[in-house]
């Protein structure tokens, strides 16, 4: 019985071995024969393609090309099917072979023969030490080799120069920032004017309280920023991008500089919405530098004399409506909220800080959000500085020094365009279809449940940023619904629907709210707990930009002109 099993195992092993060898031979022949066929056909296709370029309308050539291509593909998949099936057969055959051989070995098994003496472990250990020492020497040789190769490694060439420059500490004080209008909606981005002694009426057409009016060469939706006697503005169309510096006292265009020679690797045409345009992000200035960004990702920085200090392309933004987030600033850092992609999973969004003087990157933090159009703001909570950002679905606060996340709250949704504001110790963030949310900015981690003071779900804006005087929060829906919400309780105080369209964001000016409609008419509202329009003033041309309030003057960009409004004499 045993012998018969033994013989059977031997035969099975022999048959499985021969079978495996045959299958392997077929696989080798299959692989070997297919190579020249592939090459030949591929060469034939290349030749036909070349011929088709010279005779692009030759239908016969096209048919021939398709036939050859089809043959090539059919052949490829036939060979692949054969290879797959053959490999399975081969593995099966080998498995049977190995098992049969193991059975044969069982029948031929002989026990090991014990020897008399137990080997002395000392020479074995000595040999082991010697071998390990040799291995150690060899490994040391490898490490020395790596060290020697590293001396000339390319990364050493740029290691020092690529390091972020140390913080220079040369940045404007809070007082200097407050005296000027260095960024979108002022120094803190909350739309609260420090200079409140401004005219309560003007007329752009008649020239009433218009100190000067200057034509802006290229269109744009960016708002003016002002430092001292310089007003900066950007303009662009599909082919040109420019930066302008106007004299704040006379309106004279001091200089304009093109930003046109930056190369973006993605050469495909830029798609933006007409409402957004090519120059939507508002510039920033720190009194020495003025930085600008355009819809195609071009970023540049100039000094006050118009000399371009640095410029770079940040990559063409993957943004559904066009880049609209304005630049922000913290100390000597230029902050860019570069949110892109249709979904957070795209992984394209980031918050980037550059040294404003050199353009060198200081830090970059990835953001778990899709494209957004809101502008980040820097706030001081009393305990620390925070950089507040809004996008779908998060309001996220970062440490502006290093870009580390401080807290986040899930209160937004949809296409987030309104920027956050900070007033009365609370951050207010809002977007249409989500909420107006009041968040206490002293949290850590996810604060949706712990730090969101209240949510207000009605009359929400889709473009216009909110404003707050600390007591009330004002929100404005594009098509004319203005609502005041109690900042402490989140309860509606009043709501009013007017027959105007709004895209410009409101400003708190003392006890008044300045709100300009898209026709360029400024509406003066009472900042009290009841809706009351105190008056209006017309620019004389449409405008979607937010005004700058500096030194008793208001700077407003109209569709065609830049206006300076102030009390004459």
């Amino acid at each position, binding site marked *: 019985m045993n012998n018969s099993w033994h013989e059977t195992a031997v035969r099975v092993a022999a048959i499985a071995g021969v079978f495996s060898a045959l299958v392997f031979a077929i696989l080798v022949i299959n692989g070997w024969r297919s190579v020249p066929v592939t090459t030949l056909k591929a060469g034939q296709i290349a030749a036909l393609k070349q011929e088709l370029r010279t005779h692009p309308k030759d239908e016969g050539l096209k048919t021939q090309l398709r036939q050859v291509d089809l043959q090539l593909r059919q052949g490829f998949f036939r060979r692949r099917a054969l290879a797959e099936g053959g490999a399975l057969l081969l593995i099966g055959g080998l498995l049977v072979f*190995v098992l049969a051989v193991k059975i044969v070995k069982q029948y031929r098994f002989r026990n090991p023969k014990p020897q008399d003496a137990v080997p002395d472990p000392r020479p074995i250990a000595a040999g082991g030490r010697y071998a390990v020492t040799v291995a150690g020497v060899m*490994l040391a040789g490898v490490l020395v080799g*790596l*060290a020697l190769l*590293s001396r000339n490694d390319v*990364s050493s060439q*740029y290691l020092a*120069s690529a390091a972020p420059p140390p913080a220079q500490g040369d940045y404007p004080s809070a007082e200097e920032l407050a005296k000027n209008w260095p960024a979108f909606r002022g120094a803190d981005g909350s739309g609260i004017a420090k200079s409140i002694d401004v005219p309560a009426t003007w007329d752009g057409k008649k020239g009433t309280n218009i100190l000067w009016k200057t034509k802006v060469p290229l269109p744009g939706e960016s708002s003016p920023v002002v430092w001292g006697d310089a007003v900066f503005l950007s303009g662009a169309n599909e082919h040109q991008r420019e930066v302008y510096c106007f004299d704040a006292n006379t309106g004279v265009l001091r200089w304009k500089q093109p930003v046109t020679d930056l190369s973006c690797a993605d050469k495909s045409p830029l798609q933006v919405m007409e409402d957004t345009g090519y120059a939507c992000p508002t510039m920033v200035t720190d009194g020495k530098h003025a930085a600008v960004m355009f819809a195609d990702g071009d970023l540049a920085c100039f000094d006050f004399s118009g000399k371009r200090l640095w410029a*770079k392309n940040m990559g063409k933004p993957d943004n559904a409506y066009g880049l609209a987030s304005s630049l922000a600033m913290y100390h000597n850092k230029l902050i860019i909220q570069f949110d892109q992609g249709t979904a957070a999973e795209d992984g394209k969004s980031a918050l980037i800080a550059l040294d404003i003087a050199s353009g060198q990157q200081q830090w*970059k933090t990835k953001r778990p959000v899709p494209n957004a159009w809101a502008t980040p703001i820097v706030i001081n909570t009393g305990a620390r500085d925070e950089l507040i950002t809004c996008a779908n679905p998060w309001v996220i606060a970062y440490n502006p020094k290093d870009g580390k996340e401080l807290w986040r709250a899930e209160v937004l949704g949809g296409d987030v365009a309104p920027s956050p504001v900070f007033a009365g110790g609370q951050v207010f963030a809002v977007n249409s279809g989500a909420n107006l949310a009041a968040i206490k900015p002293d949290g850590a981690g996810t604060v949706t449940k712990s730090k969101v003071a209240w949510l207000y779900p009605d009359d929400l804006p889709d473009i216009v940023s909110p404003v707050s005087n600390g007591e009330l929060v004002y929100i404005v829906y594009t098509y004319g619904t203005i609502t005041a919400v109690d900042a402490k309780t989140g309860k509606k105080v009043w709501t009013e629907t007017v027959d105007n369209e709004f895209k410009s964001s409101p400003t708190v000016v003392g006890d008044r709210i300045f709100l300009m409609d898209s026709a360029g008419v400024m509406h003066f509202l009472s900042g009290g707990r009841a809706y009351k329009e105190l008056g209006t003033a017309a620019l004389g041309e449409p405008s979607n930009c937010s005004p700058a309030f500096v030194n008793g003057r208001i700077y407003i960009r109209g569709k065609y002109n830049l206006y300076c409004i102030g009390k004459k004499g």
Partner: protein
Amino acid sequence: MKRLYPIYCWLLLILPTFAFGEERFPPPEFESNYHAPVVQNPPPHTVWPVALDISLLVVALALAAYLTLKRRSRRGVFALTLGCIAYFGFVRHGCVCPVGSIQNVALAIGQPQYALPFVVAAFFLLPLAAALFVGRVFCAGVCPLGAAQDIVLLKPLKVPAWLEHALSVLPYIYLGAAVLFAATGSGFLICRYDPFIAIYRMSGTPLMLGITAGMLALSTVVGRPYCRFLCPYGVLLRWLAPFARWRVRIAPKACVQCHMCQDACPYGAIRPPTPAENPGGRREGKSRLVLYLILLPVLLAAGGALGYFGGAVLSGQHTTVRVANRVWLEEHGKVKGTTLESDAFHRHGQPVDELLQNAAKIRKQFDFGGLLLGGWIGLVIGLKLVFLSIRRRRTDYEADPAACVACGRCYRFCPEEHAPAEVLEKIQ
């Protein structure tokens, strides 16, 4: 004919690994009636496959422990090996496996934005927990890598002890390198050079197929070469298994010192009894031990220093650094033309200085990581010399708990396992 037999086996084991080395086919470049299917996002993992994987691992570990320690059945272990090859190998395609999970853990530590999946954490921890109580039962028949080697072992040769000692430092170095590369986000070295994954996935690059073929061929005559001389997870199991309360004990009652178990073990994991040491030898041994203990910090420091200065070359394995190096060379006119990687970078539109800054950051990580890796290598060599200078006392043949993979082969050869008590008494 007998001599040709291993060669024949080698050939047959090598050959099928090349079966699927087929090229991918490009899509048509001209208009046709063919409509490319819409790219489908794979659905997220549901709970039950994860639960099934973890449950089967637990069951397999428990079964391996039962078969090796309680039933002492080599046949049972062999059957379990086949089962685990089938499920963890061919059904799950060798992934996730505890060996590779080391890298996920290292990545989670090195890159906080990476969240360690629960199933990976479970696969990393469960075999280690088992080793702590019942020895290396995971290696016995559960690990698909060990199983592949075990099943093709046909004619085991003894590896000389000196060579075994020298090669035994390799797993530690492989572990250190794998952790460094994973923690810096440079890649999963263990998976990239997994010698058996090509079998379980029935596909692989020519390099992978070559490694597979070589390792399988070697495994027919050397018992588990990957497990003994490369496996980084085996290092962790080696550390924990000696603490196991229940582990492989060859003779059920009393060893008759026939050393048949040592001759039968294909993995060199049986240690013989030690003879008495003379006083002179003991003094010499103590002096040697003190010398190596003094040498230990020197080796650690020297290795660390060399590793630190070698970090730059190692950092070239990280994609960002590699691309940055190339782009820098192109920008400075030191090379002509572009590569696929540099083209892709330029097309993406990321600023060059941002790339260089990112690369510089990673390079610094590698400088520090190189220091740690070099120090680790020095420490391993030093400790190995120390351990080879420590005299251990054994009165019987014993399975080395660190090296024994609990395959159960030795049971069959132990006379005490089978012989009646009176026969054993006579032998003794």
